[in-house]
């Protein structure tokens, strides 16, 4: 807890952190108040005005079904945030737990967990995610599961090595000598010290999760129409790229915006917590 | 002592570093000389500027490790001002005429190259044939009393103990027979027994090679062991300087006196160790008068107003204190 407050006190001196924080805040705001911000509903079809270029009524133009691009992007922010956050939370819960167990207990638990990590690592993450999504069926939930499943290993690896070095620290030894149970030691002594690394890794894992989700949507494996997933919008735009190029441009910019926000936030956090942290 | 031409002459050196808190005045108007064949010690607590002085003399302060630094003054050696030489001229001097060894030998050796190669790198700068160079490397390993030298030449730094690494450093820096060796806290990172061996080694090398040694340390014990003359620094200023025995027997500056009194061996028998009350002055502040006045029990009005002049308590014994005559 003390470290947390320390973060915020020195954070305001860190420009990167602030810019990132502001960006993310704006995205959260957009997502939360999408109903107020978006002039149209995201599934409001108006075929008469299909594929219209940007205008006052439709600031970012319309798509092939006459839906307002701007509104769809705004509602799409909800999906991006939702998927990113949930996927990373699952990754943390699974990855950190396994990392703690592997690092602390060593021996057979460690070897089994490492084996699973190696299996996951033996394929490029995207391909594995595609495989999982194909099996489970295309839906947003399954995309979240797939992305969580292919990326938890990064947390396990870091937490495991951190735990290995931390468990030999004097205060851990003292706790053991005092008769504390292993679970207590892990939760009370090791976990708080692993926390900062995990937080930084999480802020960097989020944008990757978002890009991967968008990729899945692009391939048609994620949210189904009419859900305004940015990847789906991008995929549709390719068909109409000759007559309506603007549809392709804006979703990408949105993705860049949110990813940039999280990247800056993560880097700022890293500078604040420990400038020499090597991930 | 006959005052021959000095090996190194530091004149009115001022060093400042920029930091988020302001301009840090690390070294303020410091002047001293180092003579041939002597061991001169710069002693003082951490942050007093002694290490910065040495780094500045070797022109090791650059914009990468110390962005926004300012250096004024002169450092003369063999008639040239080292601070005004070009980079390539300075390269020719480093290792050849003036060498420096550092505090923590583990970090100071490149982990990717074998120990022998790192000395070879130095030796070969004099453009001697390869075979002869490697022969010299072996000799240096022997001269620095490294056990099993033929094997150790092929060892990586992480395979060597702290003491051995420091010996490799010494061998590396003495390989071209410099006239002056600067030793920056050479034994701080080593344990006491090794400390003694290294000091012994430095002494014997000084005797056999006839070079001067400038030792930088915070440990008075080391000063007592090997130094001929000592300069006491406080808050970036040279407050007292003289022959080692003279300073130990007859300290004139309040700081030196209180420092010596607070050494454990001098407060034997008493219930508590003596300390010096107060803390170092703010390095970013522009200080008027004497820098030690806040902690000095003999402080007077004049100490607050004027910078203490350097006076001679005896020939060769300099003090920077208004009240040195009285104490």
């Amino acid at each position, binding site marked *: 807890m003390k470290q947390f407050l320390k973060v915020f006190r020195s954070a305001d001196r860190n420009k990167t952190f602030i810019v990132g924080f502001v960006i993310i805040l704006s995205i959260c705001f957009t997502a939360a108040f999408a109903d107020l911000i978006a002039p149209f509903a995201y599934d409001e079809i108006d075929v008469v005005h299909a594929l219209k270029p940007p205008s006052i009524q439709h600031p970012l133009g319309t798509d092939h079904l006459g839906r307002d691009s701007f509104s769809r992007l705004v509602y799409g922010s909800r999906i991006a945030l939702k998927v990113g956050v949930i996927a990373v939370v699952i990754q943390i819960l699974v990855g950190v737990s396994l990392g703690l167990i592997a690092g602390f207990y060593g021996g057979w638990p460690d070897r089994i967990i490492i084996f699973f990590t190696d299996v996951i690592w033996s*394929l490029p993450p995207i391909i594995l995610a595609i495989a999982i999504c194909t099996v489970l069926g295309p839906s947003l939930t399954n995309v979240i599961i797939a992305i969580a499943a292919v990326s938890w290993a990064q947390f396990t690896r870091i937490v495991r090595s951190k735990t290995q070095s931390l468990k030999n620290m004097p205060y851990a030894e003292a706790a053991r000598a005092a008769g504390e149970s292993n679970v207590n030691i892990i939760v009370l002594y090791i976990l708080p010290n692993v926390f900062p690394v995990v937080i930084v890794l999480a802020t960097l894992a989020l944008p990757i999760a978002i890009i991967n989700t968008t990729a899945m949507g692009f391939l048609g494996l994620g949210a189904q129409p009419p859900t305004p997933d940015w990847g789906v919008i991008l995929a549709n735009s390719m068909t109409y790229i000759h007559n309506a190029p603007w549809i392709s441009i804006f979703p990408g910019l949105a993705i860049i915006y949110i990813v940039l926000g999280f990247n800056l936030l993560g880097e700022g956090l890293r500078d604040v917590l420990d400038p020499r942290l090597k991930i | 002592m006959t005052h021959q031409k000095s090996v190194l002459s530091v004149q009115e050196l001022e060093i400042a570093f920029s930091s988020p808190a302001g301009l840090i005045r690390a070294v303020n108007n410091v002047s001293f000389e180092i003579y041939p064949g002597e061991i001169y010690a710069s002693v003082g607590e951490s942050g007093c500027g002694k290490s910065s002085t040495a780094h500045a003399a070797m022109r090791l302060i650059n914009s990468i490790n110390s962005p926004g630094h300012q250096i004024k003054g002169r450092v003369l050696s063999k008639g040239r001002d080292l601070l005004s030489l070009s980079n390539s001229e300075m390269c020719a001097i480093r290792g050849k005429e003036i060498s420096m060894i550092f505090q923590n030998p583990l970090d100071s050796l490149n*982990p990717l190259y074998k120990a022998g190669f790192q000395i070879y790198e130095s030796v070969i700068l004099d453009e001697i044939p390869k075979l002869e160079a490697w022969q010299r490397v072996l000799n240096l390993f022997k001269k620095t009393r490294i056990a099993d030298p033929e094997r150790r030449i092929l060892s990586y730094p992480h395979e060597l103990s702290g003491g051995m690494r420091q010996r490799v450093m010494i061998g590396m820096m003495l390989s071209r027979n410099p006239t002056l060796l600067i030793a920056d806290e050479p034994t701080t990172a080593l344990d006491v027994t090794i400390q003694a061996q290294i000091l012994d080694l430095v002494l014997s090398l000084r005797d056999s090679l006839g070079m001067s040694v400038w030792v930088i340390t915070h440990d008075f014990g080391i000063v007592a062991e090997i130094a001929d003359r000592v300069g006491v620094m406080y808050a970036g200023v040279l407050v007292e300087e003289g022959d080692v025995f003279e300073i130990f027997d007859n300290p004139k500056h309040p700081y030196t006196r209180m420092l010596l009194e607070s050494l454990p061996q001098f407060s034997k028998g008493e219930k508590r160790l003596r300390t010096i009350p107060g803390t170092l002055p703010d390095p970013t502040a522009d200080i008027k008068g004497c820098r030690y006045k806040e902690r000095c029990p003999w402080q007077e009005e004049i100490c607050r107003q004027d910078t203490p002049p350097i006076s001679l308590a005896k020939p060769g014994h300099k003090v920077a204190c208004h009240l040195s005559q009285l104490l």
Partner: protein
Amino acid sequence: MRDIAVYAVRRLFIGMFIVLVVSAILFSIMHMMPGDPIQLIDSTRLDQQTTEKLREKWGLDKPAVIQYLHWLGNLCKGDMGRSIVNGQSVTYLLAARLPFTLQITLAALLLQYFIAVPLGLLSGYYQGSAFDKIMIIITAVFRAIPYFWLGIILILFFSIYLKLLPVSGYRGFQSLIMPVLTLTLPALTATLQLTRSEVLEVLREKYVTTAVAKGLNQKMVILRHVLRNALIPVTVLFFLSVPWLIGGSVITETIFAWPGMGRLLWSSISSQDYPVVQGIILIISILTVISTTVGDILTGILDPRIRAEMEGKTV
């Protein structure tokens, strides 16, 4: 050195075992999927009998385990089966497609390395300069760009607007340019960032001060003491990028209709063409395992401290 060879062999053995495990898992996953490829073939043209016969022919009526062992057996003979969709030999299909994927993947790998490393070195060495600041901003922004979107934008600009390059397909050298650029971008930013931060870190190291204090000139200090140390993680990243690039080729090839393995994977998954998917995944996992193993071994070769750890392990 011998110890490293032992370590390498051990790692490769474990790697191959993992590859087998992965293929087994994949096999079971695919057979868990509802329906099978025969179903996807236009069922109005086939009656029940023919469907059953087809299933028999492809061995799809037997339990999954038997099918897998059957496949493994054939694999040892070098036969990866036949595509259910078009009947071609999987080996033949892969042999035709793999070179195309390798083309863009290797081109991207080399391109990003040769652009990013010098830029990163300069950026780190001249930290704080205008050049460095610009590099930092560019890297931060480019890192946020999704590569598949970049592909689309490139098409928009170079094919549609400027009419300089072909939109898709393989029509000679020009067709290479956009897919390669698309793949290069993310890898480039990662390499640049890493190179820069490694250089910065090494420059602060005390052994660099020692090298200067010895009397080495600037060139020698940079070449022998800065570069050699800073480039180790960068070189390792080079090999670890391979799996990522292969993964990226799936979407990239789809966007550009590039006749490579990635695009084939996607279409085979969609049509549940098991043998083809199995074969491609096998190749990809082998490549991945080899790349990561090479990366690990390389660290051992280049850094004696890690070599010591490895040797400690094998002994």
